[in-house]
C-alpha cells in the first residue's frame, strides 16, 4: 500500500544548525499518528516541511507516492494536506464568518471569481454556517477575530483548517493551553473526524496522545528516535530517557 505522506532522508539546516536530519517517515491512509518529542525536537519544522512552508535542505517529500518536494505550499494544500498552526494564525481584522468563508472559497475554487458577491454563493455559505455550528461559534459569527477570547480563536483556527476538507490533517498542538470547555469541543471534533482522513497530531498532552494515536513517532533533535504502537513506545527505555530526560530524573528508578 502506498503511504499517503512519506519523507525520505529529509534534512533541514538553519545556518549550520541541523533541525531535521535524515528523517524517513511514512504515514498510511486513514492512520491516526502522533508525533511527540521534547521541546526543540523539530516537530513544527517537520510539519512545515511536509506542507511546503519550508524547503528541505535535502531529501524528498512524497504525497500519495508522487514527489512533491518542489511543489509550493499552496499546491500541496490543494492536494489535500491541511494543518492547524501552533501559534494561532487567522485574519485578525475580519469576522469569524469571513475567516471560515475564505477557506471554503479557496477549497471550492471560487476564490478568484470576480463578479458575483462573495456572500451570494449559497452552498458555500451553508457550509460556513455548518462549520461555525460544529465549533460552537455561531453566536460570535459576526465578531471581529482580534476581539475574540483565545479559546474561541483556537476553535476558529481548527474550523478554518477543517473547512478545506483535507484528506491529511496535520494538527500542531490543537488544544494546548485551552480552557476545558473549548478543549472538549476540539477533542470531540478530532474523535469524529471521518475514518478516511489521515491525522498527524503533535501534542505534549500524553493522555491525549495515547488515547488518540494508533502509532507514535518520537522525534529527538531532528531525528526519529523510535516509532511504534503506544504500548511499544511506552515501554521503550530510550524514549523515556530522551523524552523525560531532563525533568524526569528523579522519577526514574
Amino acid at each position, binding site marked *: 500500500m502506498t503511504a499517503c505522506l512519506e519523507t525520505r532522508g529529509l534534512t533541514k539546516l538553519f545556518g549550520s544548525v541541523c533541525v531535521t536530519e535524515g528523517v524517513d517517515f511514512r504515514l498510511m491512509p486513514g492512520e491516526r499518528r502522533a508525533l511527540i518529542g521534547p521541546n526543540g525536537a523539530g516537530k513544527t519544522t517537520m510539519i512545515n516541511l511536509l506542507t511546503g512552508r519550508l524547503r528541505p535542505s535535502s531529501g524528498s517529500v512524497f504525497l500519495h507516492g508522487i514527489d512533491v518536494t518542489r511543489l509550493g505550499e*499552496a499546491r500541496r494544500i490543494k492536494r489535500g494536506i491541511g*494543518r492547524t498552526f501552533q501559534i494561532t494564525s487567522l*485574519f*485578525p481584522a*475580519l469576522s469569524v464568518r469571513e475567516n471560515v468563508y475564505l477557506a471554503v472559497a479557496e477549497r471550492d475554487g471560487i476564490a*478568484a471569481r470576480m463578479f458575483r458577491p462573495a*456572500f451570494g454563493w449559497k452552498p458555500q455559505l451553508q457550509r460556513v454556517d455548518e462549520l461555525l455550528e460544529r465549533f460552537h461559534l455561531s453566536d460570535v459569527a459576526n465578531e471581529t477575530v482580534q476581539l475574540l477570547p483565545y479559546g474561541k480563536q483556537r476553535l476558529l483556527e481548527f474550523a478554518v483548517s477543517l473547512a478545506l476538507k483535507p484528506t491529511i490533517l496535520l494538527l500542531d498542538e490543537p488544544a494546548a493551553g485551552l480552557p476545558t470547555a473549548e478543549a472538549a469541543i476540539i477533542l470531540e471534533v478530532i474523535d469524529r473526524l471521518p475514518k478516511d482522513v489521515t491525522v498527524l497530531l503533535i501534542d505534549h498532552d500524553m493522555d491525549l496522545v495515547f488515547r488518540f494515536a494508533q502509532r507514535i513517532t518520537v522525534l529527538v533533535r531532528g531525528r526519529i528516535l523510535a516509532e511504534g504502537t503506544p504500548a511499544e513506545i511506552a515501554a521503550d527505555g530510550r524514549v523515556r530517557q530522551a523524552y523525560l530526560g531532563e525533568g524526569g530524573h528523579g522519577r526514574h528508578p
Partner: protein
Amino acid sequence: MSHQSATLAAATRPADPTKLRALEVLPWVAALTFYFVAPGYEPLATQVFVMILFALSLDLLVGFAGIVTLGHAALFGTGAYAAGLLSVNGITDPIVTAVLATLAAAAVGLVTGALMLRTKGLALLMLSLAACFLLYEVANQATPWTGGDDGLQGVTFSPLFGIFPFDFRGQTAFFYSLGVLFLAFLAMRRLVNSPFGWSLRGIRENDGRMRALGCPIYLRRLTAYVLASAIAGLAGALQAQTTQFVALHVLSFQLSGDILIMLILGGAGGLYGAFIGVPVYMLAQDLLAKQDPANWYLWQGAMLLAITFFAPGGLTALAQQALSAIKGKLRR
C-alpha cells in the same frame, strides 16, 4: 497597530453588499449638485473625479491587497501618455483611446507587477519607486516623442460620441469623467465584494495563512495589481483627455506620494476613502495654495502628521467613530 487594524476592519465590514446604502448615493448627488451651485469650478471638479478614480485603484492595492507602492503614478502616467500619444498620432476618439490606454497600463502593470511582486517589504517599496523613476526618465529622455520636460503638445480629442466637444468650459469633461468614474466605481464595488475581493483582504491580513489555505498568493496579488494598473491607466487617460495635455508630472514620484496621501487621508480599504480624501485634499490645496502657495507644503505636512499620529484610519474612520458615538448616546 491594533488600533489601525480595528479601524480597517470597521471600514471593510460589509453591510450586505448587494444592497445599496442611503449614504452611498451621496457622492453622486453631491457631484451633480456641485455642477449647479458652483459654475466655473468644472475643471477642478473634473480633476477631483480623475483623482478619485486614481485613488480608487490605489485603494485596491493598499487597502485591499496590502501592497504598499510608492510608484503608482507609473501606471497613471502610462495611461496618460498612451492616450496623448494616440491623439497626437491621429487616434482621437475619447472612448477608443481610453480603452487602449487602459490596456497599455494593464500591460505595463503585468510586466512590472510580475517582477515586483516576487519581493515584499522594503524591496517591494524600492522596486515600485525604481519602476516609477525609470518610466519618468524614459519619458523625460524620449523628447522627440513625449516632448520631455515641455510636455506633449498638440493633444486634442474629438467630441465625445461625435457630439460633445471637449472645450475650455469643461462641461463635457465634467460629465464624461463623472460618468466613467461612476461605471468604474460600480465595477470596483462588485470586485471588492466578490470572493476575489475577499481573498485580497485575506492576503492583506495574513498572507501566510492564505497560502496555507491553498491560495496562490502571487497570482492573486498580480491579478489585483494588473486590475489596479488598468484603472490607474484609465484615470490617466481621463486626465489626458479632460486637460488635453500630458506633462511629465503624470509619471512623477510626487504624484505617487500625493495620491497615497489623499487615499490615507480619506481612509484606505473601504472604497469610500477616495471619495472623502481626494476632495478634501484638493479643495484644501485649492484654498490654501491660493492664499499662500509657498507654504502649502507646511499644511500638507501638518495634515499628514495629524493623520499618522491621531487618525490612522483616515477621515472615514473618524466619521464612523463619531457616528457610532452619537448612535450610542441616542440609544441611552
